[in-house]
C-alpha cells in the first residue's frame, strides 16, 4: 500500500509546534509515567509504558523523507490502540510531558493519511452528517425526549424538557448512546435537572456531547463539531453548556 508523501510532509510540518519539538526532545524514557497508566496497570508490557507511545512519532520525525508504510501502521496501532488520552501519565512525568497531546498529534498524522480506524471513522462521518455519532435523526431524537418526558411525568407531573428555549441558563448535551440505546439514562438526567430546579434547554440541532473529531485527531472535523454546539449555544443565548460523561 502506498501513501501520499506530500500530505505526510505537510501534516508533519503543521504538527511540529514548540511543544511537540520540546517534548520529543526531552523525554528520557525514564518510564515513571507507567505508574499512572491504566493500560500498564492491567497489562505491564513495554508497549504500555506511556513514553513508548511517542516513539512512533519520534521515529517519523527522525526518518523524515524516508518514512515507510510500516512505520505509519505502527503509529496508527500504537496511538489509537494503547491510549485513551486521559493524561494521568503527565501527572507522573517529572518533566510534565503532555503525552496525550503528542498522541493527539500522532493521530492527526494518521487521520491526514486516511488511516483513522474504521469504527472511529464511521462514527466521525455520522457526526459530521447527522450532528451525532450514532446517526440519530432529529425526528428520532425529539420522539425519544418526548417519550421519556411522558414516562417521567407519571412520577413527576411538573417535569419538563424544553426544546430550543431561548434564554435558558444551560444547554444540555448527551452521549448519543444514551439517546439511542439507553433512554433510561435520559430519563434520569431529566429527572435530576428537574428535581434540582435547573433552568435548562435542549437543542434539536446540537445535542451530541462527544467530539469524535477530537478523539480521532482530525482537527478540522473537531472544530466543526465543536462549532455546531457553540453556534446552538449562542443562538439560544445560554450561559453555559453542560456536557455528559
Amino acid at each position, binding site marked *: 500500500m502506498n501513501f501520499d508523501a506530500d500530505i505526510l510532509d505537510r501534516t508533519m510540518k503543521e504538527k511540529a*509546534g514548540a511543544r511537540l519539538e520540546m517534548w520529543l526532545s526531552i523525554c528520557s524514557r525514564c518510564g*515513571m509515567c*507507567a505508574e499512572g497508566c491504566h493500560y500498564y496497570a492491567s497489562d505491564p508490557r*513495554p508497549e504500555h509504558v506511556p513514553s513508548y507511545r511517542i516513539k512512533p512519532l519520534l521515529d517519523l520525525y527522525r526518518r523524515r523523507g524516508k518514512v515507510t508504510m510500516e512505520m505509519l501502521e505502527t503509529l496508527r496501532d500504537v496511538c489509537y490502540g494503547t491510549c485513551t488520552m486521559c493524561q494521568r501519565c503527565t501527572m507522573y512525568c517529572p*518533566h510534565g510531558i503532555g503525552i496525550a497531546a503528542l498522541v493527539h498529534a500522532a493521530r492527526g498524522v494518521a487521520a491526514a493519511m486516511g488511516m483513522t480506524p474504521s469504527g472511529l471513522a464511521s462514527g466521525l462521518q455520522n457526526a459530521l452528517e447527522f450532528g451525532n455519532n450514532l446517526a440519530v435523526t432529529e425526528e428520532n431524537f425529539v420522539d425519544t425526549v418526548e417519550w421519556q418526558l411522558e414516562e417521567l411525568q407519571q412520577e413527576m407531573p411538573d417535569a419538563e424538557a424544553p426544546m430550543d428555549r431561548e434564554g435558558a441558563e444551560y444547554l444540555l448535551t448527551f452521549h448519543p448512546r444514551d439517546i439511542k440505546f439507553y433512554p433510561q439514562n435520559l430519563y434520569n438526567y431529566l429527572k435530576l435537572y428537574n428535581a434540582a430546579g435547573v433552568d435548562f434547554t435542549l437543542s434539536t440541532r446540537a445535542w451530541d456531547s462527544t467530539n469524535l473529531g477530537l478523539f480521532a485527531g482530525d482537527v478540522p472535523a473537531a472544530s466543526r463539531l465543536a462549532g455546531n454546539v457553540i453556534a446552538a449555544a449562542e443562538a439560544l443565548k445560554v450561559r453555559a453548556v453542560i456536557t455528559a460523561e
Partner: protein
Amino acid sequence: MIRAVYDFATGPMLWFSSAFFLCGLAYRLVRYRVLMSKARQGLPADFRPGWALASIVHFLLPLNRTARSSPWSTLAGFGLHIPLLVVGLFFSAHVVMVEQRFGLSWPTIPDAWADGLTVLALASLAFLAGKRLLHPSLKGLTEGKDLAVLGLVALPLLTGFAAHQQWGESLLMLTLHVLSAHAVLIVAPFTKLTHMALFFVSRAATGSDFGKREVGPW
C-alpha cells in the same frame, strides 16, 4: 604534550564550550518562544503563572505523586542532580579555575563534601543505568543513546574523582576530566540534557494547562 592539551582545554576551549553551551540553551529557549507565539497568534492570553510556578516547585522538591510511586528513582534523581550542581559550582578547584579565567569568585564547599557527593552521584547514575537495563518494561524502551548520555555524564565525575584522589597519572586524569566536561557542555543543548533548561518550560506549560482546570499536575 598532555600539558599542552590541558592548557588548551582549560584556556581557550573553556571560553568556547561555555559560550556554545549558553548560546545553545538560549537558542532552544528562544526557538520555543518564537514557535509558541507564532502558534498562539490571535488567541487570547491564557497562561497561568501561579500554576506554572507551583508546578516547577512541586518537582524541584519531591512534593509530587512520582516521589511516592517511584521513591528509589526519585532518590537517584536527586542524588544525581544535587551533586552535579553543588560540586560543579562550588568545588574549590572549579571556583579557582573560573576565578583565573573569568575573574569571578564565590564561596566553596569543603573538599571532603565534594568527594562524598561525587560518589553519591555515581551511585545514582549506576542505579538509573541498572534500572534501564534490568527493569522488564524499561529494557524494551532503552536506546543506546539513553545509556550513552548516562555514560557521558559519568565520565567527568569518574575522572574528576580519580584526579582528586590522585589515582593514575594526575595530569592525564585532570585533562580527561576537563575534556569530558567540555563534551557534556557541547552536547547539552542538542540532547536530552537540554532538559536543564526546558524542564522549567515544560513544567510551566503543563502547570498552566492543568491549572486552567484548577488541578495541579503533581
